[in-house]
């Protein structure tokens, strides 16, 4: 067996496995489960991670409307103070985020201000890699969630649950790249299964074809073979496992909200899933920012409200926590195209029934800047470490390099 996990090891220069061991034995051989760090944490807890791709402009998300400098440096794209959904007399939410504001007022949303890291990278791809791998100084072929999975669900005694973690979307994000755990990427549930035609033997035969020896020597061949097997069996399994869950909230029709609906169904079905990854894109607002960002924040906010209500109606809101991230915030001053260029720190949202609502950290100064950019006040790895230890009940050591003080939001 050679799989994505083994290639990861190879690319690090370590030959880990060869031969034709069935995959779960191989996984067992590399299990590194650590003792749980928190005995009082519900083992059914689920973390939903929402990627806001493209670099979300934090200043027009959590708006420092009470700061004159905000209006001065953003003459055409600043949000009007009168329309902002106020949190206090300095900051408020973008007016389109009524759903999130409602959840905030109910105490279910934490806002972590000024999240970033030292020497910020302004390339979409490198910055995304940094956030997803939690590795700042050098590239890492495993993601932070992948390393969490390697340390919590890999290994004996039972064969793995294929749905320990699920990426909703057509590609597997780097955050979920693991060495010993395969994570399925699911575009849409109604496409997650093999349409084998009338003859049931076709599907049985397809299963048989993906076992056994491989022709050729390409490293891709075994990756394809193993993924084929999982694709063949995984769809039926997931559909059956979550069939009992009926939506209890009305979700908007945009693709992101529909993905959140599926996330709620998986999280609420209690099938052992620990991590669900969802993404919403196109926050790269170099020009004409207001219309584009407002539309996307509207999806985020309405989708989140439906997601929470859905889980609440199923009695599951207390064991699901959702957190957002984006590869960077944007420059403080607007550009000449009514947009903003790549910047640095931004706020994160953490939402869920057990979340201690409120604002954590202070809003970064708009005057004391680093080369025109916000200075970060909270390291994103502190947010990750908190979620790992306080929500998922795992020691962050080995998952997050370095040591960070937990934040009290959960």
């Amino acid at each position: 067996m050679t799989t994505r996990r083994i290639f990861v090891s190879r690319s690090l220069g370590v030959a880990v496995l060869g031969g034709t061991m069935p995959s779960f034995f191989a996984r067992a051989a590399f299990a590194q489960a650590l003792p749980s760090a928190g005995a009082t944490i519900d083992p059914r807890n689920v973390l939903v991670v929402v990627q806001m791709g493209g670099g979300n402009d934090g200043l027009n998300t959590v708006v420092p409307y009470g700061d004159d400098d905000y209006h001065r440096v953003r003459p055409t794209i600043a949000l009007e103070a009168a329309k902002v959904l106020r949190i206090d007399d300095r900051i408020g939410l973008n007016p389109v985020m009524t759903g999130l504001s409602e959840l905030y007022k109910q105490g279910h949303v934490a806002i972590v201000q000024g999240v970033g890291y030292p020497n910020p990278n302004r390339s979409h791809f490198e910055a995304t890699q940094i956030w997803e791998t939690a590795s700042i100084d050098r590239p890492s072929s495993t993601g932070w969630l992948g390393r969490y999975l390697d340390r919590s669900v890999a290994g004996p005694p039972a064969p793995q649950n294929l749905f320990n973690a699920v990426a909703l979307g057509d590609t597997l994000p780097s955050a979920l790249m693991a060495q010993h755990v395969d994570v399925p990427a699911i575009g849409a549930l109604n496409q997650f299964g093999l349409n084998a035609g009338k003859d049931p033997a076709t599907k049985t035969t397809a299963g048989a074809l993906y076992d056994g020896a491989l022709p050729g020597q390409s490293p891709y061949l075994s990756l394809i073979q193993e993924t084929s097997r999982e694709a063949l069996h995984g769809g039926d399994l997931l559909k059956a496992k979550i069939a009992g869950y009926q939506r209890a909230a009305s979700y908007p029709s945009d693709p992101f909200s529909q993905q959140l609906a599926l996330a709620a169904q998986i999280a609420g079905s209690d099938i052992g899933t620990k991590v669900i990854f969802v993404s919403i894109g196109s926050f790269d607002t170099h020009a004409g920012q207001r219309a584009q960002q407002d539309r996307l924040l509207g999806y985020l906010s309405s989708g989140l409200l439906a997601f929470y209500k859905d889980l609440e109606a199923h009695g599951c809101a207390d064991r699901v926590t959702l957190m957002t991230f984006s590869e960077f915030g944007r420059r403080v001053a607007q550009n000449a195209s009514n947009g903003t260029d790549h910047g640095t720190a931004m706020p994160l949202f953490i939402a869920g029934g057990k979340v201690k609502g409120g604002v954590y950290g202070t809003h970064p100064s708009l005057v004391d800047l680093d080369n025109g950019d916000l200075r970060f006040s909270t390291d994103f790895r502190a947010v990750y470490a908190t979620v790992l230890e306080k929500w998922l009940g795992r020691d962050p050591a080995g998952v997050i390099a370095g040591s960070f003080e937990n934040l009290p939001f959960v």
Partner: protein
Amino acid sequence: MRLDTSTDPQVGFRPPGPLDPSTALQTYDGPFGRRQAAHLSRRAGFGPTPQEVDALAGLGMQHAVDSFLHPSVPELDFPDVPDGMFDPKTRVSAPQNWWLDRMLRTRRPLVEKMTLFWHGHFATSYTKVPTYLMVAQINLFRSQALGNFRTLLLSVARDPAMLIWLDNRFNVAAHPNENFAREVMELFALGLGNYSEDDVKDAARAFTGWTVDTHGAAVYKENLHDAGIKTILGRTGPFGSEDVVNLIVAQPVHQRFICRKLLEYFVYSDPEPELVDALAQVYAISGYDLARTVGTVLRSNVFNSSRAYRALPKSPIEFTIGILRYLGVQQIPPDTVTWLRRMGQIPLAPPSVKGWDGGPAWINTATLLARFNFVSKVVSAAPRSDAQTAPPATAMAAAGAAPMLAGGAPPMAAATFATLTPDRIVAQTGGMDAGRIVQLLASGALQDDVTSNVRKTLLDYLNSAGAAAPAPLGPENYQDKIRGALSLVLQLPANQLN
């Protein structure tokens, strides 16, 4: 300067075995049979029909490569722009299908393959750019597909779709916008780690002045250009866009950057640095000539080696067009783009300016299921002919004279269906012989790249061995059984590899 490959997902997927850098790019003079011919057709084009495999193999390697690089047959009469490009209902689908149709039927497959390469390289998307400008950009890529990279990069810097996509239309002396300059350095020509932030800032100043007018045409406005002194990649002067391009292509690290990407597209993932260096020399000596560079690759020992053979995963477009071509489909089925989306590759809409990651990123449970289900759909849609009313052997005896996958265009109504129907397959094999059917499929679709176990499993399937209600292949079930076997063959891991 080094070439930073740290963000390349294909690293780690280099095929096993050693490379001899001194002979890797020398002209291959080994045997050139059906497998080598099909390999060339998959890499330099979108895959062969069974007849094309035989024809190419008969040409020998040099002439076969020439038939891709310098085709002598006239191109078909494709429209320069798609009908329906300005109709709100077909604004996106018409250009997508216009291009897919060209990939399916062109007699210049390498030009189309390079056009697709440049689309992924200078990745621009209709999500931000009007589709008529996307069409113009694809036509630009096609016209310079195998031309000169220096000319191409300069053309791209002045392409309306790109000026909109990366905001250079707003890049003016008073308010520089770095978006285009940064991506030229990071993604289009140099790669991460091979330039400084100051290089980006000053290159952005050099690109000022190029913008788009209200008709969607590129224009240069002298009064918006920053004519001041810039320092870019260690050189200082009052540079403009052409100077930046000239400075970039002369960098050895650029030559390695672009050659590495060509090797990953045509040969295998994560090519050895020695191989990259060798091709970079060819590229530099040729004066950035793409036909010379790609031609060297296609004739080389390393391209024709077993290490390169079926060593890359097919992109969704390669997989889809390859199957349609094998099955004899003459017209893009209307739901093809929907399937491509599920497989992770929407034409004219790469996921970001980085393009498609390719390599292992093509392969996950969702995308493989989409591939499987696309195969089932297109195979089951093939017509049933007279099967219900006439015994197939007789029907086929009548049809037997007609060549399979005939060159002449079938009637339009049937053009989106496969001509490789169960009845044609039975006619080809001369009867309902499961063994000969498996052989025909394994040979025609996969050049016999199947194990004996796979052959036996397929044979058992056709003969219903081991099934609860065994029913050997016969007139009652051959339609479903042969479609099933055809699907199973086209879904095999070997057919996911290019």
